[in-house]
């Protein structure tokens, strides 16, 4: 069977869908040789990410074993992870002047 989602590194807390996936779908992902079952809380389109575990507000989002941003709200395991619930911490001219 073709893969439904890939995890770039064992330290990651997100996976990337490689098919269009549906809310409620149970997806088996391979995390460093270990099979992990994730039930999706939203539709997740090809190329988009979902959470492999609960991620609290302000916590780092990890992909490729590196920080790609931080959560702006609580993200539940299986939830779609994208611009609506994570943000960049780099190139933020809109933060200049904030203390």
């Amino acid at each position: 069977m073709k893969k439904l989602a890939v995890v770039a590194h064992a330290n990651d807390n997100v996976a990337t869908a490689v098919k269009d996936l549906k809310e409620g779908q149970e997806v088996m992902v391979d995390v460093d040789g270990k099979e992990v079952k994730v039930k999706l809380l939203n539709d997740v389109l090809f190329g988009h990410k979902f959470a492999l575990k609960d991620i609290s507000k302000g916590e780092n989002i990890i992909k490729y074993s590196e920080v790609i941003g931080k959560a702006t709200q609580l993200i539940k395991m299986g939830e779609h992870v994208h611009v609506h619930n994570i943000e960049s911490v780099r190139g933020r001219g809109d933060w200049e002047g904030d203390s």
Partner: protein
Amino acid sequence: MKILGFVRPDGRVGIRNHIAVIPSSVCASEVAMRIASSVEGAVAIPNQHGCCQIGADLELTTDTLIGLGKNPNVAAVVVVGLGCEGVPTEKIAEEIAQTGKRVEYVIIQECGGTLKAEERGTSIAKQMVQEVAKLQREKVDISNLILAVECGGSDTTSGLASNPVAGYVSDKLIELGGTSMFSETTEIIGAEHLLAKRAVSKKVGDKLLEIVRRCEEKAKTMGVDMRGGQPTPGNIEGGISTIEEKSLGCIYKGGTKPLQGVLEYAEAPTGKGLYVMDTPGQDIESITGMTAGGAQIVIFTTGRGTPTGAPIAPVIKITGNPNTFAKMKENIDFNASAIIEGTETIKEVGEKLFSEMIEVANGKLTKAEALKHREFGIYKLISTF
């Protein structure tokens, strides 16, 4: 390993045999285009620069035009000037001529207008084309090759499939004695610590961190969140959420070899191995910089799909997104989606891409070349005056 190339008088090796018609300013661009359109094998490099630029910007345009003329894919050059522009037409011609290739120049104001300049330029270009057509490809070592790796229209498959595959090819070329460069400083933001660790010296590592800091500061002076510009709306639709995510995926295209140096825009590497060039993330300006720095061949990874080519170098486009390959087959040369589908490894796909690169170096036309895609743009630091 050997490739088939054209050995130039300065010993550098071209894999194409173009006549470049280079306008030294925007004011000469139309005449340059008309000359090139009349002559088989001639390519114009029309641009909107070359006049009313000052300081570093003026130098950048001048160096870029000289670098493109010097690129060994160019067999001979006609420089076209208006006669009163800031970028000196004669200087460009003289600098390029140091490579030993034939270079002539035509000044519109001296010739007495469009038609006379066009006639003179066309006549010269026609002679040049006939001359260089006699040159034969020779067997030369692959270490003569300078590869430029570019990514554009990225989505999350870029970081997971096409960029690692391009990185594999870059590594292999370097192992065989060649040179590879990648660029797009904006798309190193968030991944600079990983690249800096690979620098051969503290000086090189510090320079890398400095160009990234400079780029991020420039974005911040706009007073906005970079998001929307970088990642682009298309990147975001494709699943990339932040510039850090984009960058971490992007740097895979630079493979795993030590970083030998950080180049200024359009600067040629002085040694072999891996280099980073300081360019914007905008694809066309980035490719221009790297070909002006001497790259003879480009591998361009894309997730969303792009038709981009370049005037003087073949651009091999690859995607790791199976939907994009199916949809944009007329533009994309190579399908790396077996990685995403889990049916082939990065090494297996990388070997195939390496073979494709050799074929293109030996003369196979890329889809962008066949469709005459010759996108061109020069990076600009500030406004004209």
